């Protein structure tokens, strides 16, 4: 029996389970896998965080350095977000520059940070029109078992929340914490026809007809949406997704605040 046929049978099986509201790993439709967040894991970075969602694992490092502002925003800092899907993390990742998936992922993570005004960019101006702080958010995927988006977004904001501006290294006085104004949380759901599953694992991601990532700011407002995949969704289903996602976003936010607020912060090692 060839791979295609097996895949087809497996797909039918998962859709049938879904019809009964069940998932292959036994989770409820609106249940995330186990989430672990560790911060300050990379001492060479200005901020860092490791996030595990089930077997999915990403490491996010934030580096800062002075640079020239864009000419149309002379008094604002610059955020550059990059995702490396290094081949260590999955047999399907190839060495080389980011492909369309890695680029989409980086841009969705970036969008959440940017549109929620998580970082006060004007506070990053060193000298108007000449020098501003550049923030590099680098997401390094270590283990890919689905839902890289939520893990990366969570890692990015966690890393930013623990970032110290390296003033000293560049002769600008003492290091100071980066001010965070809003905490965007991304929640990804997958469409299985009769069911919406949150936090799809790798197999679910391959089989679902489409995914939607909704990003919510601290007061529950939207800070970005991305539909991905070739499925179609009717309006009712989208409203349904909004409801589920906004609820899960609050759970994740509490989880995150719990970690950043307590002693886990100084843990080392990844």
């Amino acid at each position, binding site marked *: 029996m060839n791979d*295609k046929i097996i895949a087809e049978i497996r797909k039918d099986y998962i859709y049938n389970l879904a019809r009964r509201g069940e998932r292959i790993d036994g989770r409820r439709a609106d249940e995330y896998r186990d989430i672990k967040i560790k911060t300050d894991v990379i001492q060479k970075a200005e901020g860092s965080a490791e996030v595990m969602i089930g077997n999915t694992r990403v490491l996010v490092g934030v580096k800062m350095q002075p640079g020239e502002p864009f*000419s*149309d925003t002379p008094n604002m800092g610059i955020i550059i977000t990059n995702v490396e899907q290094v081949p260590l993390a999955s047999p399907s990742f190839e060495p080389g520059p980011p492909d*369309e*998936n890695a*680029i*989409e992922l*980086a*841009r969705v993570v970036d*969008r959440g940070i940017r*549109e*929620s005004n998580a970082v006060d960019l004007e506070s990053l101006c060193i000298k108007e029109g000449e020098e501003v702080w550049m923030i590099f958010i680098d997401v390094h995927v270590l283990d890919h078992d689905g839902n890289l988006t939520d893990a990366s977004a969570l890692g990015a904001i966690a890393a930013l929340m623990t970032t110290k501006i390296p003033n000293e290294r560049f002769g600008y006085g003492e290091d100071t914490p980066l001010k965070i104004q809003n905490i965007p949380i991304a929640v990804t759901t997958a469409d299985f026809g009769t069911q919406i599953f949150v936090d799809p694992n790798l197999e679910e991601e391959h089989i679902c007809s*489409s995914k*939607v990532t909704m990003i919510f*700011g601290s007061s*529950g*407002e*939207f*800070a*970005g*949406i*991305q*539909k*991905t*995949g*070739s*499925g*179609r*969704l*009717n*309006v009712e289903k*989208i*409203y349904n997704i*909004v409801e589920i996602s*906004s609820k899960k976003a609050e759970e994740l936010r509490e989880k995150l605040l719990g970690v950043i607020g307590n002693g886990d912060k100084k843990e080392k090692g990844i």
Partner: protein
Amino acid sequence: MLQKPERLIVDGKRLDGRAFDELRPVKIVVGPLHRADGSCYIEHGKNKVMAAVYGPREVHPKHLQEVTHAIVRYRYNMAPFSVEDRKRPGPDRRSIEISKVSREALESVILKEYFPRSTIDIFVEILQADAGTRVAALNAASVALADAGIPMKGLVSACSVGKVDDTLVLDLSKEEDNYGQADMPVAIVANTGEIAFLQMDGHMTQEEFRKALEMAIDGCKQIYKLQREALLAKYGGLENE
């Protein structure tokens, strides 16, 4: 550099005089190109967009072939002269993301299983950009696919809705896009009303999102009428509903 206007809504009207739910003028030409298997030129406001479809045709390199269905490729590309500051030729990260999600939107209607081992290539050139290029590109691509005779479950029709001065407005102008609070491009399959494309940048409340989605769908339906008219103008004798 444009100066940021003090207000984008003045006396209940938009700066260009449009109503909140009013599209910019749209012109659609079916089949302007000779080499392509199907093509479409769209002017949407000051956007000028040319789409071409090649295929179904053989896949190169071969290892990309799929035995059960056609692959679909979509390339959104901006001409260097299409924007205020010359754009370096070649794809940037933004173009790559737009190409991916636009391709997926069209894959949701193309009957790919009719053409195993082949490719359907969709190329869209943004010749002049003025806010809303990705939806204009999708609209042109959709018509070009029809012009190429590619079987589809329905036409994809796209439109964006945005938020400016705390007001939801359809089809953002360049100014509204630059200084607005949110932009949400949407595409639907007109005959079913299902959503094939959805992105949102900026911030809006959940309540606003619901209203915005409805407005966008209405906009898409207006676009669909124009696409249909343009296709009928060329292929009018054949189908008559």
